[in-house]
């Protein structure tokens, strides 16, 4: 549901949370990022930082420069200026992300978890079963058959929540319970209907089934792609997973190690919601990969 009027709540005396709706949906998230761009353009005084999420936006502000009430009024005016989604566009880079599916590292991680949690079905087989897929290769085709929308960054530095843009490629998965204590860096996983790449070796709760040798987070800013930011993705970017074999994986990993890796990226595109909706309307939802 997208709210007619934004709902504003205080997050203490220095943050304000604006809810534009309450669900996980592409339209609502597109609205959140459009709204964030409009707030930035408006140059609201006292604004410290904007943190867009799936359905809401946290506005961090300096209460010595603007009051909660005044900020709220500004934010409502900006929301009212957006109107309907038709005709809206956002800048959107496309990243091709090489993935070695069913790699030895995530398999070892799953085995490690299963040593304690004996009844845990191996993640790829579990995903195949609960999503009604034929086999593991079918899982690769479906997972790599769509572009993903970077809906939000957070939880861990550089971690993006990725939503599939092709509805025929939607997969679902419950999260681990209890969570894992470690996940290999670069692991590709999913939980709920969101896919992610683990930026670093971290705890985690998503079902895991592949690994990418392409870094998405680089605090040392060694690689060229990180010259301007420690995180590769920005909200509103898109990601396509490209299945690679072990040889290609190792070739990329070697270049990363050397510090010479160039991230494949298409940086001159915009995302038009009208064009996307037109494309969606022409899809036959019954045909799957």
């Amino acid at each position: 549901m997208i709210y007619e009027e934004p709902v504003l709540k205080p997050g203490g005396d220095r943050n304000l949370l604006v809810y534009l709706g309450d669900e996980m949906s592409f339209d609502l998230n597109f609205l959140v990022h459009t709204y964030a761009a409009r707030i930035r353009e408006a140059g609201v005084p006292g604004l410290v930082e904007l943190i867009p999420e799936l359905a809401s936006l946290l506005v961090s502000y300096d209460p010595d420069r603007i009051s909660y009430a005044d900020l709220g009024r500004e934010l409502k005016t900006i929301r009212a200026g957006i109107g309907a989604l038709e005709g809206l566009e956002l800048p959107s880079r496309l990243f091709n992300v090489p993935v070695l599916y069913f790699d030895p590292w995530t398999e070892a991680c799953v085995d490690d978890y299963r040593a304690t949690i004996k009844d845990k079905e191996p993640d790829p087989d579990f995903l195949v079963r609960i999503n009604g897929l034929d086999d593991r290769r079918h899982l690769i085709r479906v997972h790599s058959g769509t572009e993903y929308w970077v809906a939000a960054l957070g939880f861990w530095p550089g971690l993006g929540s990725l939503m599939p843009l092709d509805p025929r490629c939607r997969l679902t998965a419950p999260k681990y319970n209890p969570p894992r204590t470690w996940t290999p860096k670069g692991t590709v996983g999913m939980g709920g209907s969101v896919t992610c790449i683990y930026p670093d070796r971290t705890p985690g709760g998503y079902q895991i089934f592949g690994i990418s040798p392409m870094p998405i987070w680089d605090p040392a800013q060694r690689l060229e792609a990180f010259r301007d930011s420690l995180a590769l993705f920005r909200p509103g970017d898109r990601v396509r997973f490209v299945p690679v074999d072990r040889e290609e994986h190792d070739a990329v990993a070697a270049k990363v190690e050397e510090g010479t890796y160039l991230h494949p990226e298409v940086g001159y595109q915009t995302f038009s919601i009208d064009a996307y909706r037109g494309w969606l309307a022409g899809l036959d939802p019954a045909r799957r990969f």
Partner: protein
Amino acid sequence: MAVDAIEVVKPGLATTVQDLGRPGFYHLGIPLSGAMDQFALAAANMLVGNEPGAAGLEAVFMGPELLFRADATVAVCGAELPPKVDGAPMETWTSFAVKAGQVLSFDYLKAGARGYIAVSGGIDVPVVLGSRSTYPLGGLGGFEGRALAAGDKLSTGVGAAARAGRKLPAELWRGPGAAPVELRMLPGLYWHRVTEASGARFLSDTWKVAPEADRIGYRFRGGSPLEYVPREQPFGAGSDPSNIVDACYPYGSIQVPGGTEPIVLHRDAVSGGGYMMVGTVISADMDLIGQLQPHMPVKFVEVDMAGALAARKARADMLGRVAAHLA
């Protein structure tokens, strides 16, 4: 500047370099970091003649043992973690001299949880994203992105050292005070998801700090589980009523996973996720959380925005009195 001015003999439990933090990168998932008790760090810095936001050391529960290779003025504020120079006791909230060749060590913790050690010139580590603070989980900032270890050598910056023997009177010390500690909170965020009776119990119950209390967040135990206003969970939120569609977690926000144990997110918090939050501890009281020991009883006390802003001003005024006292 004094290169390798301090050698870490014993690191303590989890001693990290911290300044006032790294705001502005939460949108990338990078937390604020910085001193948990910002008042104590600022006061210690002012005592030794530094800017309030210079980098110092945050020692939790147990102090480090540090060998000084250069003369310095030092102050320790926050927890009652009594400093010693070559074994001779020194006072907290007071500047004292440490000569080259002397060892700064600490007695057992008497009260509070985190001692802030300021050294004249400040601890000089590289500035990462505008801050010298350590974010150990992300390996970012501070000394090599981690807590100190034996054998580490810390450099100090330039700056005129204040004289030894400057002392803050007890009325300018700030700490959590007598139990139960009152943490003022502004209801909001998802407070509307909780029934009125349950919200009232949340505020009347006495909670206890759980052992899982660190720079990411402080967990509390012992109060009543939350009861929720019934609703159909929206698409994308987990099935438990404590789950929400992923949202950003502000600094100080009180999340309640499973509706049972509130966690107040602190300086190294994760920036967002799918747990509902009942409100936010006001900024003035976040320092106090940094001084809470496990098992300490705590009450959440409701304030409105005006109350939160008045408390914020009172804290700033107190820091102003510290500066005036030392001027």
